[in-house]
């Protein structure tokens, strides 16, 4: 088991190196740069001298390998320099948003798990009954509905219903408050985006749970469990569910990592200052340092989530544990 974990940890290194190389060079293939955007972005005339000066200042005129070395060294020492656009420290820019994005992602994952596993299980056990049809419709709707749209509906619903109930509309707070400062204010802001994204997320996981469980329920060992006269609850919870969770864990892992950097539109709808929004801005501004740092953060989250997923595999399936 220890060896397995260690191997997985080692495997993270080449992935990170590959991602670093890829993002560094791909970014530089895009025409234009941050200095042109900064000085001539609005279509005004820019002095070529000034652009050159700006590039010199930002280190964009250094040999490319030197720039690459700066980037890698910065990443290894957790000092990723300043944003090329705002000039503020990148750790500051990211740190400001990381906590929020992480919290939304964790909450959405919890929402998804609490919806998906019970619903998927019921749906599989009661296959082709009205419960199953209902769950399937519910999850199809979740996949079909864009979460930003659901977000808009949630906000409108909140406004209208609070208006009707209390006479004046209530909006979730806009300013992010750390949960350690004021849990209530924090949750009343973040629960809505978590539900909006968690619903779509749960829809995928519900369908995965259902189909995996249906497959497992046809296995020989389930027939053995029935022949032993076990109660149905034990057959499902102990014998079937554990075997069918592997694909579900995979989906949950991938979705979680995606939520960390991919919630661009939902963040817009709920006016959240998260990583997704920062990501888009940094790319539009051709802010190399910030984009690189963000990519590395998201890749690290991805790799680490996959590591956790692998650990879950080993925990669920002894054949992986002892291999």
């Amino acid at each position, binding site marked *: 088991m220890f060896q397995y974990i260690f191997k997985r940890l080692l495997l993270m290194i080449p992935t990170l190196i590959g991602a670093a190389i890829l993002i560094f060079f791909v970014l530089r293939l895009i025409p234009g740069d941050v200095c042109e955007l900064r000085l001539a972005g609005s279509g005004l005339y820019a002095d070529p001298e000034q652009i050159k000066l700006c590039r010199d200042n930002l280190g964009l005129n250094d040999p490319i390998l030197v720039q690459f070395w700066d980037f890698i060294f910065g990443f290894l020492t957790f000092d990723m320099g300043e944003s090329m656009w705002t000039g503020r420290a990148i750790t500051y820019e990211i740190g400001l948003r990381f906590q929020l994005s992480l919290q939304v992602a964790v909450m959405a994952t919890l929402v998804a798990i609490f919806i998906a596993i019970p619903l998927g299980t019921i749906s599989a056990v009661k296959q082709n009954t009205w419960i199953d049809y209902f769950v399937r419709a519910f999850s199809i709707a979740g996949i079909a509905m864009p979460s930003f749209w659901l977000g808009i509906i949630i906000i409108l619903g909140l406004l209208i219903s609070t208006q009707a109930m209390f006479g004046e509309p209530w909006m979730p707070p806009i300013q992010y408050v750390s949960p350690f400062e004021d849990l209530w204010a924090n949750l009343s802001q973040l629960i809505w985006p978590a539900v909006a994204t968690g619903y779509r997320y749960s829809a995928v996981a519900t369908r995965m749970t259902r189909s995996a469980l249906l497959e497992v329920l046809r296995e*020989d060992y389930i*027939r*053995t469990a029935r*022949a*032993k006269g*076990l109660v149905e609850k034990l057959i499902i919870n102990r014998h079937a569910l554990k*075997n069918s969770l592997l694909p579900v864990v995979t989906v949950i892992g991938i979705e979680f990592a995606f939520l960390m950097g991919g919630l661009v539109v939902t963040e817009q709808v709920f006016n959240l200052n998260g990583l997704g929004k920062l990501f888009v801005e940094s790319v539009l501004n051709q802010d190399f340092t910030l984009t690189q740092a963000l990519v590395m953060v998201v890749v690290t989250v991805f790799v680490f989530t996959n590591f956790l997923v692998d650990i879950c595999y080993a925990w669920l399936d002894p*054949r992986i544990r*002892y291999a």
Partner: protein
Amino acid sequence: MAKLLEVEDLQTQFFTSAGVVKAVDGITYDVEEGETVAVVGESGCGKSVSALSILRLIPDPPGRVVGGHIKFMGQDLATLSDEDMRTVRGRQIAMVFQEPMTSLNPVLTIGLQITETLQQHLNLNKEEANARAVELLGKVGISDPDRRLKQYPHHLSGGMRQRVMIALALSCNPKLIIADEPTTALDVTIQAQILELMKDLTRELDVALIVITHNLGVVARYADRVNVMYAGRIIESGTAEDVYHYPRHPYTLALLRSVPRMDQPRKAKLDPVQGQPPDLTKLDKGCAFRPRCNFAIDKCTSNGPVLETIEKGHTVACWQHEKLLNALETA
């Protein structure tokens, strides 16, 4: 001896898109206490389905028991609630399946899979159940049972897993064990061991056994009675002695001739049963075996033969059984 299990006119059908498959089409037999009954036949003749029907383990849909009665110790199993049926499964009637590689749950320890049954049926606490599991594993010839309890199925070989399955079946002292081709997936040497084990244990513990097999060699070794099935029906039934030495149905005869025998000269050619088993969705009222039968007459097409008793304890469903006897004597 008292009758333990009475199967009466059991009919199990599968409702598929290709039509209704009459997998079991009216079979009747008894099992007495402590007796070993063999059910023999080709693949797809309804042996396994008849066994699963007894425990109500036929997946529904597509399958369903559509007729007949199964009485266990005088009680009709079809009338039991699901709750009561659960107390029969594993406790009174246990089952050993064909595929030891897939019949144990890969993610649970051997110990848990044995003790959960004990805890369910016998209300043992954890220590008692563990002690009993160790005892059971020892009984089925698994060395170092304490360590095995903590292992997972993939640590064990096929033969070992089948031993675990037997231990599981024996765990709650059932009255009847149904073994569905218990040795088919095993090596020949292991097959013999497993059979010996089952024979010894069922005799020692006085458990009745229904053993389902397509291997006539197996049956010879230890069945008290043999039911030969073809196309969902029992076509011959008798003591092992009767069926082996005085077969009265052409199918039984053909099966016997298709098995290599030690007492025949080495050059003797095997004589496989010609043709294919019939499509169970397209059975007519005639005898299902007649297209493959060397003794068929016109009557076989118009009227299906019914089981008749030709001597005490020996029944056969064939219009030509007299002729078969003559053929055997002249051969």
